[in-house]
């Protein structure tokens, strides 16, 4: 079942002024229920602008956005409902924490949905568990937590609304390696157990390769390619040319190919490189 569809989506900033810029150009793509999609692109490629259309935060200047079979700008569609269906987590989401306690912060969304006291509590506890937010943090101020912990609390706040589609804009940016891994692992486990659709915006090919089945590569506001992660990233040279960071291990495989050692074009993880090198040695 298709849960997201954009048709020739276009967005221009500052229309009618000398500063008019087309940030998203003619983008058409679909996402199926339960997919884990990565979106990658250089800074200014239109990733964030695109995702802001998927829950109606920005209104397109051309084209259409369909969520769960409805044109979100059609008459009779309440955009508020769309926002409960599509959760959007911004970059540096911990900046949006504001409540006195972690519990209150996570419950802000469910409260606005008009749930009962018990219903709110249930959702807060469930979301906290999904994001590895300890029960004994719930009564503490969110500002007493570390950066990675705050980030997880902010994510739990969005998850508590139980959106069927979750869009995450650089959820691991600025965290240390351990924090990155934790946040992404929690998201991935949540995806699996809740069976929801996830869109992960990231600069990191490593992260996308590890978690997303399919990737949308953006370049200059348009789609550079939209296909299975393995297939998309086998075009290392082209990907590097449009300003994306290629994992060091993939660059190593390229270098080895130039020296006549072929590890294959799909080496993005250390495990795979080890496997291939051992294979060649045993030949």
């Amino acid at each position, binding site marked *: 079942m298709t849960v997201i569809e954009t048709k020739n989506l276009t967005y221009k900033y500052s229309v009618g002024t000398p500063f008019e810029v087309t940030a998203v150009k003619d983008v058409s793509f679909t996402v199926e229920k339960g997919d884990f999609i990565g979106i990658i692109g*250089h*800074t*200014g490629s239109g990733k964030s602008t695109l995702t802001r259309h998927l829950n109606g935060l920005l209104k397109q200047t051309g084209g259409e956005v369909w969520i769960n079979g409805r044109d979100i700008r059609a008459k009779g569609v309440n955009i508020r409902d769309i926002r409960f269906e599509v959760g959007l987590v911004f970059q540096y989401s911990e900046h949006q924490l504001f409540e006195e306690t972690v519990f209150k912060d996570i419950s802000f969304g469910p409260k606005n949905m008009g749930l009962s006291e018990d219903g709110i509590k249930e959702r807060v506890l469930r979301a906290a568990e999904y994001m590895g937010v300890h029960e004994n943090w719930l009564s503490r101020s969110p500002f007493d937590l*570390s*950066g*990675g912990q705050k980030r997880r609390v902010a994510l739990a706040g969005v998850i508590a609304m139980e959106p069927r589609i979750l869009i995450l804009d650089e959820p691991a*940016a*600025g*965290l*240390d*390696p*351990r*924090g990155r891994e934790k946040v992404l692992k929690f998201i991935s486990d949540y995806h699996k157990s809740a069976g929801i659709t996830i869109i992960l915006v990231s*600069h990191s090919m490593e992260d996308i390769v590890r978690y997303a089945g399919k990737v949308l590569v953006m370049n200059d506001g348009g789609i550079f390619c939209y296909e299975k992660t393995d297939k998309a990233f086998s075009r290392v040279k082209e990907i590097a040319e449009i*300003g*994306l*960071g290629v*994992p*060091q*291990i993939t*660059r*190593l495989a390229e*270098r*080895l190919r130039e*020296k*006549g*050692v072929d590890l294959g074009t799909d080496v993005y993880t*250390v*495990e795979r*490189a*080890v496997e291939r*090198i*051992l294979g*060649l*040695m045993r*030949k």
Partner: protein
Amino acid sequence: MNVIEVKNLYFEYNSYDEHDKITGSAPVLRDISLEIPSGQFVAVLGHNGSGKSTLAKHFNGILTPSKGFVTVDGIDIADDSALQRLRQTVGMVFQNPDNQIVATIVEEDVAFALENLGVPPAEIRERIDRALETVDMSRFAKHAPHQLSGGQKQRVAIAGVIAMSPKVLVLDEPTAMLDPKGRGEVVRTVKKLNADGATIVYITHYMEEAAEADRVIVMDGGRVIMDGTPKEIFAEVGRLKSVGLDVPQVTELAHELRKNGVDIPGDVITEEECAEHIVKLLARANYDCY
């Protein structure tokens, strides 16, 4: 000659009640002693909360020691009367470029500190031009900072700092908010400044960036737990992982191959040397078959 000397440095954050009475203290740095020779490029690693930034903030006197002392180029950083001299000796660059840019035109931003120091106008002009050239941003001198990319903005922030000709440059995760292209630009700029003689203290979470340094310092729990060349440090894959850090992917590859009984050095840190070793290895493996 050592430009930075840290002796038995302790630092703790105190919490106060409404009468300004100390109610508790949280130790952040515990007994740090370090010497950094002039011209060295030092990378500082450590997970969030390990004390890296707190240490860095001592180098130009944003923070002062609870115990112990820090001197930079002979200046005691706790000496208030020498603060202006200290700040001109040590330039700081932070994570978020947007928080460091104050003017509406790039070259005015670079001039900001110089104007405050009362440098003569002709010299200001000269220093701006040189600083922008060093960070390769001359062609954006008349642009508005908000129209620049993150990497470009960060280079403008660096230009503003180097216009004061500091001997020491302290960069606290300058690439954390940048994309891969911007990160590359900043790292190249830093290496160039180092080649021109500046001492660099570079805090980062990117292991490939740390591999470019002369020396790597690893912090954990407010202490320096490892200190050596990138090769020495990254060879200890297990120890780094135990404190929440990573190693460059090529180092991890060598480490994993060794676990599988392959004869490759454990201290491989660049793509180049890693590729060479693998080519040799395979040539040898094939030779052994015949």
